């Protein structure tokens, strides 16, 4: 049994790949870890890969929505990638359509989406004269 889901930092983004069946405690721990990591690394985007997740229940579905909302408040964009058809059908049947969460078919497309959206924000900051100082962040 895995007791923590690893969160990887890659540049301005956090990657997390859920490769085990989520149980409730795991989901709660993940939420806590993720919020801490977002603040610590000043992450601009979070990519959640659930391509290996085969079973969801209403709790996990709500947890995903919750994680996304919390991250958004912390100014990190969240994208869920690689949802399996069976999982998507289950979530729809449960009435959870994950409103407001971006989704993509695979990690590649998800990453492209993050880059496009986060870059837009950064370019706005640059126009205002702020320096995003990427090198400092990368060495964080």
């Amino acid at each position, binding site marked *: 049994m895995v007791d923590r889901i690893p969160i990887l930092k890659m540049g301005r983004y956090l990657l997390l790949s859920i490769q085990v069946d989520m149980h409730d405690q795991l989901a709660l721990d993940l939420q806590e870890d993720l919020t801490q990591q977002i603040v610590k690394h000043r992450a601009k985007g979070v990519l959640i890969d659930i391509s290996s997740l085969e079973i969801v229940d209403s709790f996990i579905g709500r947890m995903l929505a919750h994680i996304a909302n919390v991250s958004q408040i912390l100014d990190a964009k969240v994208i*869920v*990638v*690689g*949802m*399996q*058809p069976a*999982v*998507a*059908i289950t*979530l*729809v*049947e449960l009435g959870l*359509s*994950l409103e407001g969460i971006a*989704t*993509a*078919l*695979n990690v590649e*497309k*998800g990453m492209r989406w993050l880059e496009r959206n986060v870059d837009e924000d950064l370019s706005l900051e640059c126009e205002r004269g702020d320096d995003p100082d990427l090198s400092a962040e990368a060495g964080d």
Partner: protein
Amino acid sequence: MSSSVLTDLLQKHEAAILQDWVAAQRQAGIRADLIDEQTVQANSRDLLRVFITAASQGTADLDAEYWKPVKALLQRLSQTQSRQGFSPSETATFVFSLKEVLFSYAQRHTDQPLVCIGEISRLIDKLGLYSFESFVSTRETVIREQQESMLELSTPVVELWQGILAIPLIGSLDSNRTQIVMEALLQKIVETESDIAIIDITGVPTVDTMVAQHLLKTVTAAKLMGAKCIISGIRPQIAATIVHLGVELGDVVTKSSLADAFRLALREQDVRLVANKPR
């Protein structure tokens, strides 16, 4: 006692009975286009042989072990005939034509024709029913197989362009079919990594609340996976029905024709089609 009378009769006149039986079948009409006379002869001979063997061991209980070969043979014959397209009465005639033949033999060659005839009648009726049951159950299997293949046939997901899928729905939709459509579409989205799926309902005669609900579910599920759905081919009556039923289509993109939907999909994929200059 009557059993032994019957057995004696059968064993003594086996060859003659066979001949008369085949003749009776010929008279009733053999489907020359489906079966030749040699096969009829062979089938009759096989059945008569196992019939006599079983009858010599007892005729009271058809569920007994020694009647199994007869039943197995009947089942095999009925199944083949069912698949070959024989009519039910043609299949039943095969067994029932034996009855008349046996009656005439019982009348001519036994001391107690009535007892013997009663027994023959009972036996043949049961065997006839049994062959009929096999016939019908085979038919049902065929129907079920066809239904399944229809379901598979009726849900093709086609790739229109790189990253653009279309699923043309034809015929009425029920929950069962929509479920299969939904799964096929989502599976194909994963396989081809398509960003856009066009659901074309030009061929769907009616849309009720259930169907609309299922369509919306499919669209939402696709969205959860990261693909976008466009519904096309909504006819005026169906549009009126949807509004009348109060179904909320929400932010689902709808287009009147598949061409319009395809054009939108191309634009979203940043693909531009340019017409050649006239030469």
